[in-house]
């Protein structure tokens, strides 16, 4: 168990290191000389050399990387050329919470819809409920989220006027306003997940319900709903968490798309506008932060899994 944790930690650090090398090289490979960009069109050779030295760009690449990594770890991510904002604050305190809120809310919606759909499909398999659920699941998975987002904006935002079509209100500032603004984006992002969750729930539950311990629970006089929702679903949780974990990358990708469609000031929006403005250090910060986020979430999923499966827990 300890060894597994250490291996996992080692892997995590390695992944983070690779992400950092990638995002550092990105800055090096990006077209344009950062010194010229910062100095503007009119500069002397002396001021050019001075700034190059100040930025440490005259030093070997490996040393530059070391400095850069140290600064990153310290939270010194530089300042935006355009808004003059501290990039660390922009990314970690402003953009990240938006993305996390959107992702969490979408996941919640997906679970609340996906799990019961999957359970119904399994219990009434091959009936019309199953066919409908499976169709919806595949449909939700195949439908591009940006397209769904635009349709939702068009129908419920513009057409019916029930929901706002853009902007973000933090739910911790004003809960109902926040939910109201998040509804369409979360449905857009969650729809993609619903199908996946429903499908995994269905197939896992079908397998679990064929196990002797389910028959044994019935033989103890347990009522049907408890057999399914307690004895069955408790065992479905593990494969479900695994799949949710495997799809985290897709979730983050989807979040970027959704933020752009709904103009939510999250990480995806931050990176997109940085790309349009060619603000390389913001892009770089975005890549790093997304990488860290992905790795941390994965680690959390892993821990959850260990916690959920008693067979992986303590051994006597």
């Amino acid at each position, binding site marked *: 168990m300890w060894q597994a944790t250490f291996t996992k930690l080692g892997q995590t650090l390695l992944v983070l290191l690779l992400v950092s090398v990638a995002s550092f090289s990105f800055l090096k490979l990006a077209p344009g000389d950062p010194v010229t960009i910062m100095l503007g069109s009119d500069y002397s050779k002396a001021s050019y050399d001075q700034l190059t030295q100040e930025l440490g760009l005259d030093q070997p690449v490996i040393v530059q990387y070391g400095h850069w990594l140290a600064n990153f770890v310290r939270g010194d991510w530089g300042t935006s050329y355009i808004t003059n904002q501290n990039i660390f604050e922009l990314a970690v305190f402003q953009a990240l919470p938006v993305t996390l809120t959107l992702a969490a809310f979408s996941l919640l919606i997906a679970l609340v819809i996906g799990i019961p759909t999957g359970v119904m499909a399994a219990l009434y398999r091959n009936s019309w409920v199953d066919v409908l659920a499976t169709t919806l699941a595949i449909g939700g998975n195949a439908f591009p989220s940006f397209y769904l987002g635009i349709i939702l904006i068009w129908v419920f935002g513009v057409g019916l006027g029930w929901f706002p079509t853009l902007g973000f209100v933090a739910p911790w500032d004003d809960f109902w306003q926040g939910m109201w603004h998040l509804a369409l984006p979360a449905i857009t992002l969650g729809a993609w997940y619903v199908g996946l969750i429903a499908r995994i729930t269905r197939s896992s539950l079908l397998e679990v319900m064929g*196990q*002797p*311990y389910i*028959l*044994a*629970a*019935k*033989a*103890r*006089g*347990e*009522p049907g709903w408890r057999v399914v929702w307690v*004895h069955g679903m*408790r*065992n479905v949780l593990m494969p479900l968490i695994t799949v949710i974990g495997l799809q985290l990358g897709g979730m983050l990708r989807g979040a970027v798309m959704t933020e752009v469609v709904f103009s939510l000031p999250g990480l995806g929006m931050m990176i997109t506008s940085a790309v349009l403005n060619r603000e390389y250090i913001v892009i770089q910060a975005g890549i790093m932060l997304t990488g860290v986020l992905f790795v941390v979430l994965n680690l959390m999923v892993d821990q959850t899994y260990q916690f*959920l*499966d*008693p*067979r992986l*827990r303590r*051994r*006597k």
Partner: protein
Amino acid sequence: MNQVSVLAQNIPVESHAEASLLEVRDFSLRRKKATVLDRITLSLSPGETLGLIGESGAGKSTLAMALIGLLRAPEVEIEGSLRFRGTELTALKEADFRRLRGNKIGLIFQDATAALNPCFTVGKQIAEPLRRHLGLSASACRARAVELMQSVGIPEPRLRLDAYPHELSGGMQQRIMIAIALACNPELLLADEPTSALDVTIQAQIMELILDRVRALNSSAIFVLHDLALGAQVCDRIAVMYAGQIVEEGPSERVLNAPLHPYTQGLKSCVVELGMPTLTPIPGQIPPLDAMPNGCRFAPRCPKAQAICGEQRPETQTRDGRQVACWFID
């Protein structure tokens, strides 16, 4: 509701004086037109033990599942009657049947490792029937679970209460299963090959334990077994099943020592000759369910078979204190 409370409490049996606990009469069970159980007739008195013997596919587990109500109409087609303490089980509403399961009728599975939920502690699983049927509080459940674990020979039950199934050995897991099945002092215990998944060295121990507990609780029990000799040693009576029918049924020592049905004779000879329950001395195998012969189902393999055996089913007759279904009882 009235019927429910009658079942849940220990109200004396409503039928006649010599009253059997269980009366199975002409009970047939069909799965998609295949007759898996064919006119089974059995009775069991309180405190009596019955061994259900037969080779693989004879329908022993199916009968056990039907008795505990986990195989019922409309999932399968059912005919005939199952009376338990005078109550007709086939007509019982599902909610009422549920009050019998794990309460008045207990079931021990063959493979305890597979029959215990890996995600719940054994204490929780023992507590379930206590809570559901006896309505014990959480703390009373724990106390009773410890007692039960003690009664099935689990050392340091208080420590094992919060163990997960995988933390216990196969033998311990089967003891837990036994504790669960006996938690509410059932009047009928069904044990479907309770030791065949275990190490040979502890099979006898576990069998002994079940018998001990059954006697202590004065319960009746049906043991599903492969081995005729073991069955005769353990049970008061033996019912030999072949292809969904009971071919011979009677007191253990008679059935073992002087079998009347050719199939029982075949079973006995392989026990004696090999000292283990292999069925090689009887040539052939049980015919597939969709190709059952019209007459005696054993006829194609029977050394004594004549023309009539293939054409007409032999009626069950009483002979020498037992029930036998054969045209040529010598």
